[in-house]
């Protein structure tokens, strides 16, 4: 315990290691928070839900905070719903069971580009006669643009940009820029806009509500991808996945390697010989090719890949290194003493041999974590990521296969890449410092 405390004190001499430790701590907190706040099933629903989950989001939108760093302000996305009281709703009863429903939503628009799209999602209740709706847009300079009139079914979606009649009326190339620009120019008109929806219902119990969705050019904290998915989800969920994969793989590999090396060194003879031969065979096996084969032929589940990774990583060079040291330790006096009083072989291996090696185990364990974290991302990048789980590697793969760098969607690649980099480097600097502390040969050089 004392040596442990000493090592910890030495760790404080390495500022980089402290920074690494701090980052690892933050990552663990985020991972715990993510798993509790967005449970697995919810994460999968949000990640693989389909259009009805993602309809509120624009496509290929960088995060909203990029506006702080650019002179040109991009329009932000929003979605408001009269069901949630976000749109002003006034119901005026009329004659013979009819009533007029006025929905108004004022919004500020002070951006330098146009939104991608505007949508209205109507829901209504009626028995026979469909409610009738007219939509208008009031611009800051006092124009009143009539958008459309239509009857709505129980569910009805109106897409501004797809309305051919409106396009003809506006005499423009595209609907959205025409609505938001100064007349006869291409510059956006900044100011307070107001969306006015007047609905008429023809039955006493008939009612209607609307959700107004504006797809801007930027969205939320992390932006969106080609399928309108909010990237905050995979970025957050990538943390526990990366940590779990890295930690389990490195712990499984190092601990099993150590146990097998100890067993080989202790029993010697054919056990040792067998372990040596397996190690040599494992050398011939193509590591990545086998992982890819398992991913392609059998299962892309992250747990299967994890198991295969551990299996293939046990019998590597480390086993030779540990074996050499175990062979030395085996000859030491305290082991002889244990033998003399009749300690069993398992007892000697697990209680006397292996604990001696823990100082050597810890740095190599921490140092191997980044390799496994990046392995998951590497497999994902060539299209063999877990098909269900949202991970950082999956984001990079989606971005790559959609030509993100080519088309200039840098945020899409940079966000997961930077997170991967931070995670990998945090463990790497920590392990590096631990190695120098625990490895006496390195202490002076």
């Amino acid at each position, binding site marked *: 315990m004392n040596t442990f405390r000493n090592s910890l004190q030495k760790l404080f001499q390495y500022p980089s290691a402290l920074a690494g430790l701090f980052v690892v701590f933050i990552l663990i907190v985020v991972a715990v928070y993510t798993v509790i706040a967005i449970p697995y099933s919810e994460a999968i629903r949000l990640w693989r839900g389909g259009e009805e989950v993602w309809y509120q989001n624009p496509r290929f939108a960088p995060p909203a905070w990029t506006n702080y760093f650019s002179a040109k302000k991009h329009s932000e996305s929003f979605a408001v719903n009269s069901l949630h009281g976000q749109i002003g709703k006034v119901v005026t009863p009329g004659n013979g069971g009819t009533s007029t429903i006025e929905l108004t939503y004022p919004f500020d628009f002070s951006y330098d580009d146009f939104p991608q799209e505007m949508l209205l999602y109507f829901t209504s209740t009626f028995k026979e006669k469909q409610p009738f709706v007219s939509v208008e847009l009031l611009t800051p300079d006092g124009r009143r643009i009539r958008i459309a009139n239509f009857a709505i079914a129980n569910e009805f979606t109106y897409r501004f940009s797809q309305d051919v009649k409106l396009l003809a009326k506006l005499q423009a190339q595209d609907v959205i820029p025409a609505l938001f620009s100064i007349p006869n120019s291409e510059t956006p008109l900044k100011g307070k806009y107001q969306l006015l929806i007047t609905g008429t219902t023809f039955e006493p119990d008939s009612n209607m509500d609307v959700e107004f969705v504006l797809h801007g050019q930027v969205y939320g904290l992390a932006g969106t991808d080609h399928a309108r998915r909010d990237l905050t989800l995979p970025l957050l969920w990538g943390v526990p996945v990366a940590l779990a994969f890295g930690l389990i793989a490195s712990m499984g590999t190092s601990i099993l390697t150590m146990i097998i090396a100890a067993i080989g060194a202790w029993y010697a003879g054919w056990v040792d010989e067998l372990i040596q031969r397996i190690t040599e065979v494992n050398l011939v096996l*193509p590591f990545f090719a086998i992982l890819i084969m398992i991913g392609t032929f059998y299962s892309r589940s992250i747990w299967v890949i994890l198991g295969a990774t551990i299996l293939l990583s046990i019998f590597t060079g480390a086993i030779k290194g540990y074996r050499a040291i175990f062979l030395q330790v085996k000859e030491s006096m305290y082991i002889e003493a244990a033998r003399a009083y009749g300690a069993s072989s398992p007892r000697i291996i697990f209680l006397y041999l292996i604990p001696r090696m823990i100082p050597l185990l810890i740095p190599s364990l921490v140092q191997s974590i980044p390799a496994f974290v990046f392995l998951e991302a590497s497999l994902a990048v060539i299209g063999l990521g877990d098909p269900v789980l949202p991970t950082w590697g999956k984001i990079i793969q989606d971005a790559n296969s959609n030509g993100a760098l080519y088309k200039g969607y840098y945020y899409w690649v940079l966000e997961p890449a930077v997170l991967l980099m931070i995670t990998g480097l945090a463990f790497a600097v920590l392990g590096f410092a631990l190695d120098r502390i625990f490895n006496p040969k390195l202490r002076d050089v």
Partner: protein
Amino acid sequence: MTGAGIILPLSDQQEFEVTMAITTQPSAEILVIKKTYRERAFMRVFRYIGVRLLTLFGTVVIGIYLTIMIANMGGYVDRIMRNEIRDRITQRIGLSAASQQMDPAVRKKLIEDSIALEEKRVGLNVPIAVRNFRYLSNALTLNLGRAINMTSDSGSKQVRLILLERLPATLLLMGTSQLFLFFSSIFIALSLSRNYGNFWDKFIIALSPTSAVPPWFYGIFLILIFAAAFKVLPFGGMVDSPPPANTFDYAVSVLQHLILPGVSLVLSSFFISVYNYRTFFLIYSSEDYVDMAKAKGLPSRDIERTYILRPTLPNIITNFSLLIISLWTGALFTETVFLWPGLGRTLFHAIGQYDTPIIVGSTIIYAYLLAMTVFLLDFVYVLVDPRVKIGK
């Protein structure tokens, strides 16, 4: 890198190869026969070579057999291939105009016959156990055979030709980057170990953890900066499309395409490599005989050459030879990210198309190269280090 005590500028796997090469002793006991020293030495070497060759060959056989088993997934791939063949042939015959007028029974028979023929071509008519052994013996005799689905750019289905066609691309990329990495890191490590503790030494130490990041990852950043943002270098591929007709322009275009993948391969191992060599040299320069040489007042160049580089020569040679054979495997992920038409990417495509002959072919060549290198290194050690004797 691990707690092994020996620090070598190598990955885990390579590190093992080194220790394997250095520490493996023949298990056979040495015959004690009264003979002249020369005869005994000859017997010892002869015996050692025999045992060594046998174990290495056994290792290769088992390794290749396991690869074949995995490449077939215990028959699972067969099912996929059978279904795929049935689908393809049924569709082809169903769509062809001639079969429209055929009697259904005749058409059915035609389909079944074509499927049987195709399965025979691919080799599916033989039980999997037999086929595995056939693959094994063909592989061991380097009879690489024909690919199932892939073809080379020149249209051949010969595995040998497919692999040979991709070899120059991989050699170009891996060769330039790895050789540069090797020589530059030894050179820089020597100069760092000469005056360790100075700013550059600390700088390299501080940056060495960055090598945890794989090359393709640096590749993405490099693409972002130089291809996407500044538009000075191409995104990927090996040559402009269409390729320039002029040889000089062609070479320039290839060089332009080589820069980003090459730099990312070098960047991702440079710092750890320099750090490891430097630490390695430092450990050796703390030996007593180095102090002695310094006390004698020898110039530092001579000290380095005779007392530091000489004893580390076996390690350096090992690293170098492993580097040479690692060229064969290519850089799978980097080649994929940069769309570089090398062996690594070919292997990846072969797996995607269930092309067992190519997977096995690529593996057996690597296995042979590795076994041969490990075998030859034993003799090289004797040449460079008089303390080492074969079979002792």
